[in-house]
């Protein structure tokens, strides 16, 4: 019997886990969070290609460091491989994707279909987003759909899961078992409304939330204080969004061009003063993680290292948030390994095996 990793189905890594009482999904992320472990999620940079290897290679660098991988849905309104497609590939390989659903591109008919399709492929986590406006991306002439908003999308999926019905009331034969997520941005106005807005999202069905990039820890602390006072942190797992900044120039560009990301002057000053700005950006990210992990109510971090994905492992390692725990890692199965070794020997070693010799070595 080969040693099995925690949260892995013995019948196959791509299969859903056993249902647990109180769990709404059969996925790994919900188990990690409900066990009270500090969760780490990240984002896969979606390829502009039709090659599955591009997805696998991009997922491989997170192996053993993250509990779930966000499959983004045309983030920034730029065309990329779809989140459904990425999820189809990742679930085959046993990864735990978080399927992002943005309301910008699909109406309620398409979205409900994708929810069923995703859940059937083994997607256990879905993140409901509004989505950036089309003006932000590479196709500003596209028609913005926004048929649902993030809140009504959450409610739609929750109704599908808990009531086993479409939005129209038509019955589902097998409801999707998903762990529902939402996004929150504590760093954009109206600041008083944001914690209340989180409460609305919880009421609509959010079980975990990922925040926008946190570069202003005091501001995040204030938000969390209000969320705790309102009792939200008992009902939802908050994953704080963090990420490395490549340089002071990038930080300034993001600040003035990407709405919703708040970068204080102190951060830019610190980067400007550094010898190696990239290294300092990484260190800054680790410092922020070390601060936010101590805030009561923070259940994990969401590391967004766009085009710096190779740093995710280092950031998670050096910040020590996993406390020695190793998240699920894709491993070659022992029988596959035996076959591979054997093939390797036959193909590359200059030997001629005869049945007689094989019998001798077998004894």
């Amino acid at each position: 019997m080969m040693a099995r990793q925690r949260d892995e189905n013995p019948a196959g890594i791509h299969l859903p886990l056993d249902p647990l009482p109180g769990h709404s999904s059969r996925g790994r992320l919900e188990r990690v969070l409900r066990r009270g472990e500090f969760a780490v999620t990240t984002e896969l940079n979606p390829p502009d290609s039709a090659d599955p290897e591009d997805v696998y290679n991009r997922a491989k660098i997170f192996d053993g460091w993250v509990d779930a991988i966000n499959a983004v849905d045309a983030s920034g309104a730029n065309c990329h491989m779809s989140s459904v497609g990425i999820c189809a590939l990742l679930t085959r390989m046993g990864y735990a994707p978080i399927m992002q659903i943005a309301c910008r591109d699909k109406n309620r008919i398409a979205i409900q279909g994708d929810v069923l399709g995703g859940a059937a492929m083994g997607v256990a986590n879905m993140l409901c987003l509004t989505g950036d406006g089309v003006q932000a991306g590479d196709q500003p002439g596209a028609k913005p759909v926004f048929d649902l908003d993030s809140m009504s999308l959450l409610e739609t999926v929750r109704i599908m899961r808990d009531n086993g019905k479409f939005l129209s009331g038509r019955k589902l034969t097998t409801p999707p078992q998903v762990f529902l997520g939402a996004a929150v941005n504590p760093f954009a106005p109206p600041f008083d409304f944001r914690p209340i807005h989180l409460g609305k999202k919880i009421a609509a069905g959010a079980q975990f939330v990922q925040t926008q990039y946190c570069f202003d820890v005091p501001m995040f602390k204030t938000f969390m204080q209000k969320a705790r006072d309102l009792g939200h942190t008992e009902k939802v797992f908050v994953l704080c969004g963090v990420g490395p900044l490549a340089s002071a120039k990038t930080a300034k560009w993001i600040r003035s061009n990407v709405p919703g990301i708040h970068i204080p002057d102190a951060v830019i000053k610190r980067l400007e003063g550094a010898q190696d700005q990239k290294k300092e950006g990484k260190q800054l990210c680790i410092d922020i993680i070390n601060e936010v992990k101590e805030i009561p109510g923070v259940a994990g971090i969401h590391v967004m290292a766009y085009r710096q994905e190779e740093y995710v492992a280092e950031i998670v390692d050096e910040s020590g948030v996993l406390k020695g725990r190793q998240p699920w890692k894709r491993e070659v199965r022992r029988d596959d390994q035996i076959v591979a070794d054997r093939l390797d020997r036959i193909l590359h070693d200059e030997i001629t095996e005869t049945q007689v010799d094989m019998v001798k070595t077998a004894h």
Partner: protein
Amino acid sequence: MSDKEPAVTQATLVKKAAPKSDYKPADVSPQRRVQRSFAVRLWSIRHSRLLEWFYSRFADAFLLLHPLWKGLGYGRVEAPIKFVEKRVKGFMFDCRMCGQCILSSTGMSCPMNCPKQLRNGPCGGVRANGNCEVEPNMPCVWVKAWEGSQNMVNSDKILAVQKPVDQSLRETSAWLRVTAQAAAAREAAANAGTGAAA
């Protein structure tokens, strides 16, 4: 933010990239082109408490007239009522005639003016100065909705999770719908009351 917000909209980029011609459309999003300046809309939000009071009286008056609407036939009065409603609400709130008005739950700030038509709260893209991510010169509809709702008596109505917009009700009269529904509810309550008594 210390840096000045650059007012680079997508329309600017598109305009720059477009081939040279004498006609250049205004530098705003397509949605913004069909709207006027939002001075009146902002006035309505500032006076949300007054309008809330007025609206509830107005709804009562409409409900009183229910026998009249019913007598004339709701279908027959729809066109003239819609004509008035569209112009009045269009002037006051930049109404989009979604047909399912929730102004009293959104601080008298019409959520259909949000470029993403969000009916449940702001998106994460609100600029540091409180303006919209899509239209940098327009105050965020939901920042204003929050301000407006805080002045109102029923300030917690903003907490209700709104259902998705029923697109099949667009360009219909929300006033008549609400009145007919209220009348039906009143009748149902009356029937239940007499049923219990009998």
